[in-house]
């Protein structure tokens, strides 16, 4: 067990460095000078550009820049951002917390909605309910989330006034963005749940359990649910990383000050330290979560040996 965890952490380090190295290379080939302009159309004073290039080591070769990043990272330092010139860790830490809050709320919604819908669809396969679930899940995927989010916003925040329009971090202002963010994954969880449940329902041990004359509810809860939930747990492990890094549109619509949006803004401004910071956090969280998920398997299914 301990060995397994250590090996996984070793893998995590490899993935972290692989991803950031590719990222550095990407940022390096992007056309445009990260410190070449002010916020917009105006070119910067060439003397200031030169000064900033020196300050951020932008005149150094790629390998050297990456080396600096790694040695700073080891000391927990992610550098200084190019526009406001604040510490990246200071800029990102409140955002990271906000996005985590949003992502956790979204996952709770995913799990509850997705599992329920998938359960119903699987138990009543090819019935009206099954088709309805398929229709709704497809619509959730087919409608862009900014459309869903903006409709929710104008209905519930502006017209009905149930929720605050501009998020202030409170629970009340969390509901709409979390729901918007959750919809797609809830749909995917529902489909996943339906699929695996259909498989499990057909498994020999379930047939045996039913043949033994166990009550339907017991069979469903003890055997079917428990075994169907494993892929869902895996999927959530994968999607959480995505949620953290990709909540950008939801965050933009609801003015949620998270890292997804920070990433997009940073990309537009070529504010590289922020991009690198977000990716560093994102990859670390992604890999850690997947480790947790794998450990969780062992709890859910004793047959699985960690090796």
């Amino acid at each position, binding site marked *: 067990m301990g060995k397994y965890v250590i090996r996984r952490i070793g893998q995590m380090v490899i993935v972290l460095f692989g991803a950031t190295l590719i990222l550095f290379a990407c940022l390096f080939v992007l056309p445009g000078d990260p410190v070449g302009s002010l916020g917009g159309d105006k070119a910067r004073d060439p003397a200031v550009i030169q000064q900033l290039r020196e300050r951020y080591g932008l005149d150094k070769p790629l390998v050297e820049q990456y080396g600096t990043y790694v040695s700073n990272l080891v000391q927990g330092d992610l550098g200084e951002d190019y526009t406001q010139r604040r510490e990246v860790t200071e800029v990102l830490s409140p955002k990271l917390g906000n996005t985590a809050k949003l992502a956790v709320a979204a996952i709770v919604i995913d799990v509850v909605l997705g599992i329920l819908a998938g359960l119903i669809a699987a138990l009543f396969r090819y019935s009206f309910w099954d088709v309805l679930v*398929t229709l709704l899940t497809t619509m959730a995927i087919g409608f*862009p989330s900014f459309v869903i989010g903006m409709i929710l916003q104008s209905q519930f925040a502006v017209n009905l006034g149930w929720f605050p329009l501009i998020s202030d971090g409170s629970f009340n202002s969390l509901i709409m963005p979390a729901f918007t963010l959750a919809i797609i994954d809830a749909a995917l969880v529902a489909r996943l749940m339906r699929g695996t449940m259909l498989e499990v329902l057909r498994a020999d041990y379930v047939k045996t359990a039913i043949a033994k004359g166990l009550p339907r509810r017991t069979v469903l809860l003890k055997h079917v649910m428990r075994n169907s939930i*494993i892929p869902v747990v*895996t999927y959530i492990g994968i999607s959480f990383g995505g949620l953290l890094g990709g909540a950008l549109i939801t965050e933009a619509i609801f003015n949620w000050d998270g890292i997804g949006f920070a990433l997009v803004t940073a990309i537009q401004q070529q504010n590289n330290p922020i991009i690198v910071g977000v990716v560093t956090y994102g990859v670390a969280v992604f890999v850690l979560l997947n480790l947790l998920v794998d450990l969780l398997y062992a709890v859910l299914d004793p047959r699985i040996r960690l090796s």
Partner: protein
Amino acid sequence: MTELTKSDQGPDAATAQSAVANNTAEPAPARITQWGEIRHRFMANRLAVVGLVLVALLFAIAAAAPLIATHDPYAQDLTNTLADPSGDHWFGTDALGRDQFSRIIYGSRIAVVVGLASIFLACLIGCVLGALSGYFGKAIDSAIMRVADIFFAFPLLIGAIVIILVMGRGVLPVIISLGVFSWATVARLLRSSILSVREMDYVTAARALGAGTSRIILRHIMPNSIAAVMSYVSFSVGTAVVAEASLSFLGIGVSPEVPEWGNMISSARDFLGVKDFLWAYPSAAIVLTVLGFVFVGDGLRDALDPKLR
């Protein structure tokens, strides 16, 4: 919209991963059956047939777009912008007075091309790497899976921007960036599927009979592992169309004059609540497309895997 999250990796990625951890899970001993039987099972499934009709319709519309469209999709009419749907413009006109109906009809072409080509690319990379990983295991497996992890964790947006800026804007860079960032799921899926098939009796038998590695992979393992991939793929064709919309939303998709569903929706966003038909029709087109491919995918999976009947 998939928000450029990894959520478009599809649910089956999870099945794959659980199987990774769960090497002792029951294998799926699906024998490749006669095509006739598969077809029979597929056609018996009502939803699958509905899906097939939708997909066929999409292809027909894409092929016959010039015949169906009522207007030139590029023609502007600045005296008739943002017109509500009418007898002349069935789906109304956009901010430049272009006929929405015709643009949606022509948009099906890009939807088909982007959807299919990006998934094809993802499958190509994913299948090759997944098969290598699953069949050989050990160091090769470990290396390929680490690379897959990197691609899972890496933000699609940045990769896409780099690809699009280096190649220039257009349909091809969009296809490549979507493909390059979804192969990892296919690879994992196939790998785990192969892991469970690899030790089956008929594979051992083939090996004993002296069949070469590539022959074993192509003839014996792939056909039996492909069911899971098929279902993911059919689902992803739809999500690829939506992901293309996200790229347009962020200003790095195809050029704005191109009639493309994602483009149309993203330029309609500021008209929300004022001119809702601008996003409603293209969204409906995407939903129908996704629906068609999902039904077909489900039907295919069920037909290929008789255990699930």
